[in-house]
C-alpha cells in the first residue's frame, strides 16, 4: 500500500530527496533539512520510509509516542542506526537487566533485544520469554 505524496512546495520536496539519499560517509543520517526545529522525523520518514514508519505507528511505541529519536538519537553525528541497549533499558530496566549484563558491549547487547523484538513494531510474537520476573 503506497501513500500518495501530497503536493508540497519545492523546498519540501528537496527535503524528501535529501532524506532518501544515501547517508554521507562518517555520518549516520543526513542532518535535518533547512528548518530542523519545525520538523520532526515523521515529516520526512512518513513518505521516505513508509513501511518502517507504519510498523512503528501501528505498534505500541507508536501509540505511546516513543518517537524515533528516543531509540535512534538525533540526526547527523548523533544518529545511531542500531540503538544501544541503554535506550531500551531506560524504560524497561527489568527486561534489560535480565538478559543484558551491565558492562558495556553496546552493539551486542542491543542485538539481544532485537533478537526477538522486531525493530520498529517491537512485538516479539511466538518467541519464548527470556525475561526473568
Amino acid at each position, binding site marked *: 500500500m503506497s501513500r500518495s505524496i501530497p503536493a508540497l512546495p519545492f523546498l519540501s520536496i528537496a527535503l524528501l530527496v535529501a532524506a532518501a539519499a544515501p547517508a554521507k560517509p562518517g555520518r549516520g543520517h543526513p542532518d535535518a533539512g533547512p528548518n530542523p526545529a519545525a520538523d520532526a522525523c515523521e515529516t520526512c520518514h512518513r513518505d521516505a520510509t513508509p513501511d518502517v514508519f507504519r510498523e512503528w505507528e501501528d505498534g505500541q511505541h507508536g501509540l505511546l509516542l516513543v518517537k524515533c529519536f528516543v531509540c535512534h538519537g538525533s540526526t547527523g553525528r548523533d544518529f545511531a542506526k542500531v540503538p544501544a541497549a541503554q535506550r531500551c533499558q531506560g524504560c524497561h530496566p527489568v527486561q534489560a537487566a535480565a538478559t543484558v*549484563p*551491565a*558492562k558495556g558491549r553496546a552493539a551486542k547487547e542491543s*542485538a539481544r533485544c*532485537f*533478537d526477538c523484538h522486531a525493530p520498529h513494531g517491537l512485538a516479539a510474537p511466538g518467541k519464548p520469554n527470556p525475561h526473568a520476573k
Partner: protein
Amino acid sequence: MIVAGVIIETAPGAAPRVAARLLHEPGLELLGGDGDRRLAAMFTGPAGGALEALAERLVHAFPDVIGVFPTYVAEDPEEAAPGAKPARDPP
C-alpha cells in the same frame, strides 16, 4: 565449561574498590553490587575445579574479600576456550 553466578562478599564499604581490582580478573564478569559489601558476578571457566580455585584465590589475594558464594552453577558440555563467541544462528 562451567557457568556460575556468584556473590562476592567484602568488608563493609569495600565493594567498590574490590570491584575495581576485579575488573580484569579472567573469566569473571562483574554485574553489579550493592555499593557496600556485595558484588554480583558471572564466572565462566573450564570445568573441574576452576570455580573453587577462583574462590580460594580471591579470598587469599584480597584482604577485603570475605567470601565467594555461588548462587548458580551449570555445566555446558560444549567445550569452548574462554573468550570464544558462543555458537549462534545468524539473525
